[in-house]
């Protein structure tokens, strides 16, 4: 049995199994969707029993693809992905819309399969599958707004995939290998791949798809979305770019700038999306530092983060589900109606804020410690500052404005049982990891000598957090704390949602008909040129043999991307 499971492509049970969900109805369907991640977990147990190295190698068109590369890094990510996938399915199990189950489970499966990919082509395939499957979790809201958001999300995700493919081909041309091991920046191919990973990891200026899209998905869809895409990118960066120093300033920037946006954001799921961006920053710094402690810290923090961030999104999803709104300006006092959800949310908030005995405390500190060990002064200050920021947006703002603050008068039912069960499971993990970090430490890629519970660490962390809470109390008491307001806050997405279209629109107005004929002319010219190029450079053409495939692919990718952008803006 276990050898059979071990020979199936990773997560194929979830990916293929998801497609059969619409054939089932009612209770049978519920049992089936819950069984899929569990069966896949059995396969994972089989993988844990197999020797490290490349398994399931297949020949395709002369290339060797590795579907299952088994080592500590891939196993630990696959494990946490399974746990979160299962609890997310529990959370979503009341949903009657089969399409959402298909999308959620296939998306999770693609994420799991991607971390087992031993070569860049396999990685690319699952990389794109996560993009395509996940967009349906946004579209499932079935509103015009969700449709447009989904399109923006999909374009950016697919662009990341196109860059990954282009980088892979250029890299293959240069080195003759498709293996997905340490890549490092410095060559065109690896730089393109770095950029592709950077989009999904929400690097500064590449980040906005996250805050744009995640809060627009369905109640349960956002829980799935928050887990897999960005952490797959963290995994990929840890695998390919450990010790790449540029990641340190990039990561520190990521921890800091979203804090300010989170303070003024009214949509609490969008606050969490900014907070997610900030948490990714800690992991990116860890990858950039690249020491054993730093990488262990990154993996451990990703593990803990997947749980508490999922929990926070679940609690806000439950609020949205019961009250129909997630705007801080309309919520408040919900602890009276949803006491259990409030408790679970507070557990998530304390975990992300890294209070002692909660998961963030034993994982985030590994990264900060590694930064300190390398005497990276500014990064250390930046991360400590960002830790106070986490206390603000996720530690206080989320639970306070949803469940306490002024009583909004909203009276609703407690979250449904399946949601409470999922949140309970997540909350138990948050505390379990915080109190007994040893089992998690044992799963990490390198041996752990780190000790989280020292007097210095406990006292200084409590000082930082409690005095931050004190600052909050002072700000509230003096009326300096800004009121929650219904608003949209501009971020980098303004450039492609308003700035560029406006610039193009301006051209159109000025040029009027001239512009239209210009476009027609340009299209005809492009067609003609393409035909000519094909004649010259196609497989039978004179120049066809002298082009390097790598640079061609790159240019095709650039043109496709440009086309995509122009098409979208028009």
């Amino acid at each position: 049995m276990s050898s059979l499971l071990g020979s199936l492509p990773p997560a194929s049970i979830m990916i293929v199994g998801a497609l059969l969900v619409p054939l089932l109805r009612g209770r049978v369907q519920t049992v089936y969707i819950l069984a899929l991640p569990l069966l896949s977990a059995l396969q994972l147990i089989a993988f844990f029993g197999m020797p490290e190295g490349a398994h399931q190698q297949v020949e395709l068109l002369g290339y060797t693809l590795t579907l299952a590369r088994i080592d500590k890094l891939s196993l630990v990510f696959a494990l946490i992905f399974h746990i979160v996938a299962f609890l997310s399915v529990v959370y979503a199990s009341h949903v009657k819309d089969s399409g959402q189950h298909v999308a959620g489970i296939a998306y999770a499966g693609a994420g799991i399969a991607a971390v087992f990919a031993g070569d860049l082509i396999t990685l690319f395939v699952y990389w794109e599958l996560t993009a395509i499957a996940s967009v349906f979790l946004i579209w499932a809201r079935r509103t015009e707004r969700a449709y447009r958001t989904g399109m923006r999300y999909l374009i950016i995700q697919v662009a990341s995939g196109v860059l990954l493919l282009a980088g892979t081909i250029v890299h293959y041309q240069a080195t003759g290998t498709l293996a997905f091991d340490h890549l490092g920046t410095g060559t065109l191919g690896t730089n393109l791949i770095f950029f592709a990973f950077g989009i999904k990891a929400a690097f500064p200026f590449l980040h906005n798809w996250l805050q744009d899209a995640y809060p627009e998905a369905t109640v349960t869809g956002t829980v799935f979305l928050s887990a897999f895409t960005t952490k797959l990118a963290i995994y990929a960066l840890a695998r390919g770019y450990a010790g790449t120093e540029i990641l340190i300033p990039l990561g520190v920037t990521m921890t800091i700038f979203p804090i300010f946006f989170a303070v003024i954001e009214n949509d609490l799921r969008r606050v969490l999306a900014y907070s997610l961006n900030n948490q990714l920053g800690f992991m990116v710094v860890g990858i950039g530092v690249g020491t054993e402690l730093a990488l262990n810290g990154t993996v451990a923090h990703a593990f803990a983060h997947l749980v508490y961030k999922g929990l926070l999104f679940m609690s806000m999803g439950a609020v949205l589900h019961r009250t129909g709104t997630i705007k801080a300006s309309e919520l408040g006092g919900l602890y009276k109606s949803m006491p259990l959800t409030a408790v679970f949310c507070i557990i998530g908030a304390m975990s992300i804020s890294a209070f002692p005995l909660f998961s963030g405390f034993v994982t985030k500190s590994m990264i900060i410690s590694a930064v300190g060990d390398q005497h990276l002064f500014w990064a250390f200050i930046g991360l400590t500052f960002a830790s106070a920021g986490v206390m603000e947006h996720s530690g206080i703002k989320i639970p306070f404005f949803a469940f306490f603050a002024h009583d909004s008068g909203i009276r609703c039912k407690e979250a449904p049982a399946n949601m409470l069960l999922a949140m309970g499971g997540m909350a138990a993990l948050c505390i379990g990891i915080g109190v007994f970090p040893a089992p998690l430490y044992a799963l990490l890629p390198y041996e752990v000598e780190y000790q989280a519970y020292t007097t210095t660490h406990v006292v200084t962390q409590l000082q930082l957090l409690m005095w931050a809470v004190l600052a909050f109390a002072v700000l509230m008491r003096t009326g300096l704390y800004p009121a929650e307001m219904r608003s949209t806050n501009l971020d980098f997405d303004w450039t492609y949602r308003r700035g560029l279209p406006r610039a193009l629109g301006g051209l159109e107005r000025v040029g009027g008909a001239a512009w239209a004929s210009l476009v027609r002319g340009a299209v005809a010219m492009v067609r003609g040129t393409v035909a000519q190029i094909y004649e010259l450079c196609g497989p039978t053409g004179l120049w066809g043999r002298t082009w390097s495939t790598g640079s061609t692919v790159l240019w095709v990718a650039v043109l496709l991307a440009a086309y995509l952008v122009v098409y979208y803006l028009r």
Partner: protein
Amino acid sequence: MSDHEDRRWLDEPRNVTRLVWALVAVCAGLLAADLFYHKHAHFAWEEWFGIYAFFGFIAFFFIVLAGKHLRKLLMRDEDYYDE
């Protein structure tokens, strides 16, 4: 259910004030704790008395007030993108 029946301990302003004073006491205690152990730090400044407490307080204050000013620059109507 009327609002009156649903009044809880936290709805009493006096109790909120009590909580705030409890918080002040906890914070004072944490600050004083720095006198009673030897810090193991990466940087010399980490050993300054109460530095983490002051850092947390000031950072939080700064973040919130900076956010408030950021609104002037970034805040638009809720339906800004829907027009």
